[in-house]
């Protein structure tokens, strides 16, 4: 039963991790703004469904498109001008904290700080599987994660765009020399990554509700999954997410649920200090300066 819930948690971490990895591959800095995009989308869904009475099937794609647009906007308005000024990854990171503060507090202003839910109709009992109660939403989360992981793997390994993203991620000058338009590819992966973050945010909101600050925890969990996985590949992130969720479940069992996050970050800290290359091998974050 614990394992089932862990898998569901892992599915969410996995989507977030992959969405971040896509942006990170070409952006090459730790973008806190990503956390804000993750939160903006579910609030957009909320607005569309509650205020404008759109059906979820319409509202969700619109929200994801908005997420992609927002990803492009922060790239254009902030990050690209900074890159032109030869900013280091640390400068981009600080600017991204600013972006996060602006977006997150804008949501707070518009919607308030209380927990809101996207759930529709009466709460259903859910299915019983292996002693756990699984709701429809949670099934949707699992399916979405499966699609995103396999889709991500397909995108990165089998398509031209994916090859370009990986090329830019490995060496921007080299990518440029073989005629890849690095800024264009960066923009594209930022858009896809942002839309995926929006998807993750919306799924979290459907499952457990949302707050304006939900993005920070979600993002960190995704990044932790990426670091533990030690790879930006969909497979590595899935593995990392699974390990993270299982350790969280274990901490919940042994210490209580309130210790779940501290334990996860303690594990991360130990991981960073002992084995920065992750379980899958390659060092992926840029250790600059």
């Amino acid at each position, binding site marked *: 039963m614990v394992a089932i819930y862990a898998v569901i948690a892992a599915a969410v971490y996995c989507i977030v991790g992959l969405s971040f990895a896509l942006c990170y591959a070409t952006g090459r800095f730790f973008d806190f703004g990503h956390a804000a995009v993750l939160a903006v989308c579910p609030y957009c869904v909320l607005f569309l469904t509650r205020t404008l009475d759109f059906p979820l099937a319409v509202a969700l794609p619109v929200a994801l498109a908005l997420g992609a647009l927002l990803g492009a906007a922060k790239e254009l308005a*902030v990050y690209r001008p*900074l890159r032109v000024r030869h900013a280091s990854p640390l400068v981009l990171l600080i600017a991204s904290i600013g972006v996060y*503060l602006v977006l*997150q507090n804008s949501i707070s202003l518009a919607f308030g700080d209380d927990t809101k839910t996207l759930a529709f109709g009466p709460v259903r009992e859910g299915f019983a599987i292996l002693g756990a109660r699984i709701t429809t939403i949670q099934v949707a989360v699992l399916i979405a994660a499966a699609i995103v992981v396999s889709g991500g793997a397909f995108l990165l390994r089998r398509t031209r765009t994916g090859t370009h993203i990986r090329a830019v991620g490995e060496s921007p000058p080299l990518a440029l020399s073989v005629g890849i338009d690095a800024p264009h590819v960066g923009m594209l992966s930022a858009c896809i990554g942002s839309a995926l973050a929006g998807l993750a945010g919306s799924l979290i909101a459907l499952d457990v509700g949302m707050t304006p600050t939900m993005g*920070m925890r979600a993002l960190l969990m995704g990044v932790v999954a990426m670091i533990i996985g030690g790879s930006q590949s969909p497979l590595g992130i899935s593995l990392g997410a699974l390990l993270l969720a299982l350790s969280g479940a274990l901490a919940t069992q042994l210490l209580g649920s309130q*210790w779940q996050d501290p334990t996860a970050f303690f594990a991360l800290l130990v991981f*960073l200090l002992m084995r*920065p290359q992750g379980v899958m091998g390659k060092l992926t974050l840029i250790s600059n300066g």
Partner: protein
Amino acid sequence: MEYAAHILVVIGIYAILGLSMNLIAGFAGLLSVAQAGFYGVGAYVAAFLALQFHTPFVLNLTVSAVVAGGLGFVVGGPSLRLRGDYLVIATFSFQVIVLGVFTNWTSVTGGPMGLYGIPPVHVLGSAITSPLGFLVLVAATAAIVLWIASRLARPPFVRTPKAIREDHVLAAVRGKNVARTKLSLFVVSSAMAAVAGVLNTYYMRFIDPSSFTVMESIFIITIVIVGGAGNLYGPIVGAVVLVLLPEILRLMGIPSAAAANIRQILYGLALVACMLWRPQGLIGEYAFGREATPK
């Protein structure tokens, strides 16, 4: 008058936090998002001692600084080997863990409700309860902290951190013990942050975990960056500007609920604007995180 004194006390506490952050971010060029954690450790240790053992202010201040400094040593030792993104994530992890302890170790920290009923500071037998009286205490403490920072901010000591922030490999080739220098600064910085925490405890006479979140760390970073990283007085300027900024909102009559958010938005915009147009901050000389331009 009371109001002005209150604002100045808040500025004083944030100036100390900014000075502490400046030691690592400004002088050594290392970004840590754990400063609020050490701030909180100082606050909680002092509150715990005051409530449990009724020990005097000066003793609690000393113990808090030593505990936070020791914790800085334990945490900084291994994590300062990391740089850039990794250091940010490692310190973030520490921040989450510390906050988790504050929130969940209820028997010591009071849990989410925090600790209250902390006795006021006694000086020469009389209790300091007015903001004006406390302002004198904060000003005196801030002056001492500034003096310590000024000792570290001048040659010969400051040369090595300055070399490290620009080229840590070259600093080592020049025979400088990079790890020890970073750790010394980190330990002093942690202890200083704890001093601010102790002042906060005795001023508010109540603490809860919400004052020591990662957002608080980010605010402290903003103070240093907006004021001017690497300049001794930069954090003080930053603290003055960033504390007064929301007060202007209040004077404009914006309701306090919205003001909190608008304040954060302004801080966010200030960060982005600094990075884009004024990376050295208001009075700094060091553009944080910018690479030196090779000819």
